[in-house]
Each structure stands twice: as C-alpha cells, then as structure tokens.
C-alpha cells in the first residue's frame, strides 16, 4: 500500500488530489455512522440499566 500511495502521488497529481478528497470524505461519512451507532448503543444500555434501577427503587417504595 505504501508503494501505491507514493507512486500515485508522483505519477498523476489530479487523480491523487481527487483520491485524497474522496478517501477522507468517505472515511468521515463511515466514521460518523459508526460512532453515531456506538453512541446510540451506549445510550440504550444506559437506559436499560437506568430502568432496572428505577424498577428496584419502585419495588422498595411499594
């Protein structure tokens, strides 16, 4: 991969520039989706544990 990166930048600059912009944009979109899903998953887990705690507290009160 190192050779590919070094060669492409030296041989065709316009293609290389488009490749860089494209790779970074695609990575940003993918990372945005992945981290968003991770955050939602975390919130879902937190909500699940939160509900358990509330239920326990309600049991004690009742």
């Amino acid at each position, binding site marked *: 991969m190192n050779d590919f990166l070094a060669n492409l930048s030296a041989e065709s600059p316009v293609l290389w*520039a488009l490749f*860089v912009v494209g790779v*970074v944009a695609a*990575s*940003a979109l993918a990372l945005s989706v992945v981290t*968003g899903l991770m955050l939602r998953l975390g919130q879902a887990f937190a909500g699940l544990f939160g509900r358990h705690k509330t239920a326990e507290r309600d049991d004690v009160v009742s």
Partner: protein
Amino acid sequence: MWFPNAEVTINPALLVFLGIIVGTLGGFFGVGGGFLITGGLLVFGVPPLFAVGTGLTLVMGTSLINTLKHRSLGNVDFKLGLMMAAGSVPALYGAQQLNHQLEAAGIAGPVIRVLYVFFLSVLGTFILYDHWRVQNRSNTSSRGESKDGVSADGVGADGVRVDEVSTAGLARWIQRLNIGPRSIWLPGFGKVETVVSLPVSGVERISVFVPVLLGAGVGSFAGILGAGGAFILTPLLIYVVGIPTVVAIGTGLFQVILTGSVGTFFYALSDRVDPLMAVLMLAAAAIGAQLGTSATRVVQPSQIRFLFGVIVLTGGLAVGLEEIAQVTEIDVLSTVAAVVLLGIGGAMCLGIGVLMIKAKRKTHDLTSADD
C-alpha cells in the same frame, strides 16, 4: 509508524491524542481546528508544508463529521451556508492568487502570522469582554436592581434581552439593512427576491447580500491564512448577524467543509498531504466529535462563548510565540508555542467533559425531584 508521503515516523498514540482534542473542540466550538492541528503536527516532527496540507485535510474530515452530527440536532442553516458559499468560494481563489504573490515576494510567512495574531487577539478579547458584560447585566437583573435600566423581566433600556450578546442591537440593524436591488434576475431561476427569511436561524428578514459579503470576507481571510475560517465566521454570525450560538456553530462547520475541500485539493495536487496520517487522526477525531457536539446540547451558550474566547486567545499567543521564534531564531519557543496550544486544548477537552457531567447531573436531579 511510518508515513510514506510525509516520509516521517511518528508514534500513532500522539496522533490519536491530537485527533481527539481536535474532534472535541471542533464539535463544541464549530471550528475546524486548523491552528491546533498544524501546531501539533509541527511538534511531532512533520515537515511544515505537510503539516499544513494534512491539517487542512483533517479539518475537512472533522467538519464533515461534526456538520452531520449538528444537522441531526437541527443546528445547520443550509440556506445561509449556501448563500455564504456564493461569496467564499470565489474569494478563496482570489486569496490563493494573493498568497502566491506574497510567497514570491518572500513575505508570506510573517504576513500570515501577524494577521493571525491580530485577529485571534482582537476576537478573543472581544468575546471575553462580551461574556463579562452580559454576565454583569444578567447578575444586575437577577438581583432586581434597576442599574443600566434593566427591568425585572430581563430587558434592558435598549430593549435588548440580558441573556443575548451585547451586540444584539447591531445584529438587528444588520438584519434590517437594505443592500442593492430588491430583486435580481438569475439564469435558470428568473426573477429572485434579494430579501429572504432564515427560519432555522430565527431571522425574519435579511438581505442575501449580507451573507454573500460575509462569505467573501471570510473566504479571503481563510485563503490567505490557510485555514477553514470558522474561527472568524462563527463569532461574526453570532455577534454581527445575530444567529443563535448553536446554529452559528453548525452553519460555520458546513462552510468549513467547502473551504477545507478546496484547500485539501490544492495541497494534495502539490503532494503535500499524507492521507494515512489524516485518516488515523480522523478516526480519533470522530470519537471526540461525538463528545463535543453532544456537549453543546447541555452546556449554556454563554459558557461555550467564554471557552471559545479562551481558546482563540491561546491560539493568538501560540502564533505570536512562533513569530518571535522565527524572528529571534530561538527554536525552543516554537516548541513552547505548540505545547501551550496542545496543553490548553487538552485541558479544555477535560473541562468540556466536566461541564457535560455537571449538566447531566443537574438534569437528573431535577427529574428526580419532579418524580
């Protein structure tokens, strides 16, 4: 880890650390963080032109991530962003031509650094002064005092609410301005009104020439300084156009995607970008961005503005130290500048985390009290 394009070996943990700082501050303040990234990469031993090029590439990526996140929170005014782009994109091209002339004259470096120091210092001082003034008005109002003519419902003698920025009167005047003709003819669109409303920003009427001229001004500075330009645009949107803080942050980031993409393309064209380094930092920045953007939902806008003032002033100090280092040829000052910038940036990320936890606890306590 070996980076083939920049031809340098760097510990990836350092790049991850830098990425998290940039992502968090970018999401929180609505800036690309170009001045942070370039300074950090220089300290890690990346060649200067690669530091700027790779920095701009990361600015573009983090802005894209942060804009998507802010869009889901309803913080991006695309109509306003596109109007500003009509001014900023041509201005960017013009600024790059000016930069080439400055470079040919051998004065590009000092001119850029002096401009940076001037704008960052003026902007940072103004933001902190505005925060102090608004806090004072707010305290006076909450004590029920009639000093400055502030009434009990929080409205001052000038009709400006105390929880607004101190330039709210100026912003209303700008929104009422009539510039140029009331309508223009555009090919493909026909006759188009030049006075529009911006529902997302809560602006009832504004001339399209205001955001276009604003975009042109910011695009010029961004092109000359080699930055995304959000550190100038976001405060201008808040203080001059009167856009709510969180919408100014989201819209500023949208604008940086455009300026960052153009900058990345040009630097990549002259082979001054290391995409491997940029993508590695981007992965870390994506995690920081979630924290920074989420924090804008729970932290008070006045606190965001205060912290923004501090980081802008720190940026000015760091660039000032860099300029002194160049003039006096004392290399250690360059290292001090970057360490100060990264240190304050890291501390601010921790501060944002603490503010978020405090705000969440407060909300939780209120919910528990209601139950």
